């Protein structure tokens, strides 16, 4: 038993509810985060390419990126909340061990966010500045992802926490962990792939965009998607093989469920790749959502595998009080109604707005 692991607090309802909520919200966060990352990357590419169609595509993407950031952050908050409930004692500790870097995430997001808005609102007058702004956002996103990878690998490895005593100001990163790089790469490459899909979808679905822009979006989006998904399958294997032996064993028969998820994920990835090559945008979109969920389940198995010697959520003490949870479910359902209503009204009135401009 590692003596540095803090004692956890009790939870109000059985741990399964939190696991469910975590596994529900985290993949949604991933999808949005990926779309944001991919859109920024493709917008940068389009800006650099510089022909008229590409420029207009970049502008279309500029308009959606701020929304993607807003909802990526929003869903990230939900996932972070449930993560803290189950794994807070690991997560807080790893955050402190890299505290100086971790807090930097906040100003970095702010800068990326405002430059995304500038990129949108001032697009027409930016000229060369557009490349600078969207690169700034993109590189910040990549940097933040790196910090997240650091924190999550740190969190899973209490043995690594000893670096704290040499650097209590939180200036350590988990660079010594052989899993860090493949893990980071796997998330980035996958993110850009899904982002490509998102851009292709924008091209397919935004009817009021000019047809050459739509075609360009679909074309480049699908190319990015297919290429990066191919790389992703490879990087996935690298990631898997870099994991500690006990964790790998989970996926090679050690744990029936984990193995099943792994096989399902692998097969689905191949199907998605094939669909990418034949450019079936809607089919891919329908398949990628379960794929992201499956990958998140795999990721969860990895986490359980790492933490097994130290902790499992089943061991958390429950001091039962269910009424606040029922209130939450009630508010969640009640909250969906106005959101749907507003979105329908907005979609009904937006095309007009476009014509007025």
């Amino acid at each position, binding site marked *: 038993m590692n003596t540095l692991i803090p004692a956890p*607090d009790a939870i109000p309802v059985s741990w399964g509810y939190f696991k469910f909520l975590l596994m529900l919200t985290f993949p949604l966060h991933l999808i949005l985060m990926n779309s944001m990352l991919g859109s920024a990357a493709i917008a940068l590419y389009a800006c650099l390419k510089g022909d008229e169609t590409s420029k207009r595509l970049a502008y279309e993407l500029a308009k959606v990126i701020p929304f993607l950031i807003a909802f990526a952050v929003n869903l990230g908050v939900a996932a972070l909340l449930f993560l803290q409930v189950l794994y*807070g004692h690991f997560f807080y500790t790893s955050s402190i061990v890299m505290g100086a870097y971790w807090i930097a*995430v906040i100003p970095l997001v702010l800068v990326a966010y405002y430059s995304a808005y500038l990129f949108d609102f001032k697009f027409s007058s930016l000229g060369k500045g557009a490349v600078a702004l969207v690169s700034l956002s993109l590189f910040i996103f990549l940097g933040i992802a790196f910090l997240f990878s650091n924190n999550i690998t740190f969190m899973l490895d209490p043995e690594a926490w000893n670096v704290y005593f040499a650097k209590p100001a939180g200036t350590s990163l988990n660079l010594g962990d052989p899993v860090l790089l493949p893990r980071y790469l796997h998330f980035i490459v996958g993110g850009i792939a899904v982002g490509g899909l998102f851009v292709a979808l924008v091209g397919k679905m935004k009817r009021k965009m000019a047809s050459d822009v739509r075609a360009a979006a679909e074309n480049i989006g699908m190319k990015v998607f297919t290429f990066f998904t191919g790389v992703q399958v490879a990087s996935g294997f690298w990631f898997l093989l870099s994991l500690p032996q006990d964790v790998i064993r989970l996926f090679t028969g050690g744990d029936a469920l984990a193995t099943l998820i792994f096989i399902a994920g692998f097969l689905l990835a191949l199907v998605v790749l094939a669909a990418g090559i034949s450019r079936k945008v809607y089919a891919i979109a329908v398949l990628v959502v379960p794929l992201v969920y499956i990958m998140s389940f795999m990721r969860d198995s990895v986490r359980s595998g790492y933490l097994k010697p130290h902790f499992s959520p089943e061991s958390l003490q429950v001091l039962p009080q269910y*009424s606040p949870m029922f209130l939450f479910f009630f*508010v969640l359902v009640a*909250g969906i109604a106005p959101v749907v209503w507003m979105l329908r009204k907005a979609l009904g009135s937006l095309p007009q707005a476009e014509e*007025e401009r």
Partner: protein
Amino acid sequence: MNYPVWYLPEIGGGTLIALISIIHVFISHFAVGGGLYLVCAERKGLRKNDGAIIDFTRRHAKFFMLMTVVMGGITGVGIWFIIALVNPAATSILIHNFVFGWATEWVFFVVEIVAIFVYYYCFGSMDTRTHQIVGWIYFIAAWLSLFVINGIVGFMLTPGVWLADGDFWSGFFNPSFWPSLLFRTFVSLMLAGVYAFLTTAYLTDQRLKSVMTRFSAKWVLSSFLAAIPCGYWYLSTLPNQARSLAEGASPTVRIAMQYGLYTAVLMIAGTLILLLVKPAWHSRPVSFLVLASAFLFLGSFEWTREASRRPYVINEFIYSNSIVKMDLEKINRQGFLKSARWVSQRSTTEGNLLAAGRDIFMNQCYPCHTVGGINNDIAARTSFMDYPSLLNYIANIHEIRYFMPPFAGNETERKALAAYIMKGIHGKSVQFTEETPEAVEEKGKTLFETHCVLCHSEQLVKEKTASWDRKKIRWSLDNLNRLNSSMPDYTGTAEEKEQVADYIFSLQGGAR
């Protein structure tokens, strides 16, 4: 002690929390009141069929969206990041007890951002009735967010019955819930008007500028007046100790209160009257002045609320230095270093006194004291003490200064801490002076230096007592708290009091 201490000796985690929260508090309150302001301003424009007002509202909505969704949203996440880094134990308690409160608040957050996006992006293209409803949805969701957060923030200062039953609802609807909710509601309306001054100051159309400035000024003044009684009601629900802290027992709190509150009240009232009578005088400097004073007002309220929670993060439950009150006895028994997880030394020995003292300092004092920083620098605070007086101070730290948590640990650990501060930080000697005959004779002086020069210089006492006779001085030693409410009574024996009285009397040149 359960968690590592993120140690930035010159800055202090508290400073970082304050920095992020101040920004967030100003924007999040604006995010609530501003919603109502937008709806009302739009309606005014619609009623009067005044396109200029509607156009103003649209531009203000853009500013509002950029401010609240981006700055407000991200600094909100920032608060989570920073409190988890600085106060992980307390954050964990808040998360685990109120997880479904936070989750519910998150739903309102979703509704809020969808609503503000629809409101701004469909301004002018949506039919006005639907658009107004969207504005209302925004405001209601934002206010409900405030409702939830208010419960949890209030819980930290006045946990009330939760301490006994640990029940979500007792913690949520805690004793300060309603006054604080009302106060915050009015403050958020006030801020909405104040931020609108910023936008109106940039208007070039003089007629519109005058109309909207008046409109905003009335808005600010009425909500400000309504906030004042709520503030008093709020203060009256605080537990005694917290209230006396809020009312100024700690010198710095008192100063914050005075500067913050009075200047803000004066400036706001003055500027607004000016604007109501003569809107044309409104300019950018004026708007920044009003904004600054509104910030001071809210800032001093929040600062005082934070300060009056001391020495706790969650009142009567967990101290600012992450020690749970209930565990104190156990820690004293088995020693702090043995009870803590994240210390480099597991016990005190002759050789590691300074290293052990540093561990203890980082865990128990650093939460409120920097080393060589601006904010509550321990070096400056202890500059006039020596090793024996500090040792004694630490033993009674909570009794002398209620707003500091009691020292947790055993006798040698206390020595290690005092040694670290005296030798490690000041480089002073940590020897006890020999009890020579002269020293015994100087007992009064030693006692005085140990117990009295902690808070004020010898000079001050000399001046204040210049006209007193020996009898009054002796009397005062039984009544220090009556003389000044932030001075604790002196707990020495009758014999020691005689010696101290002799010494003070001798300061004026009086004979013993």
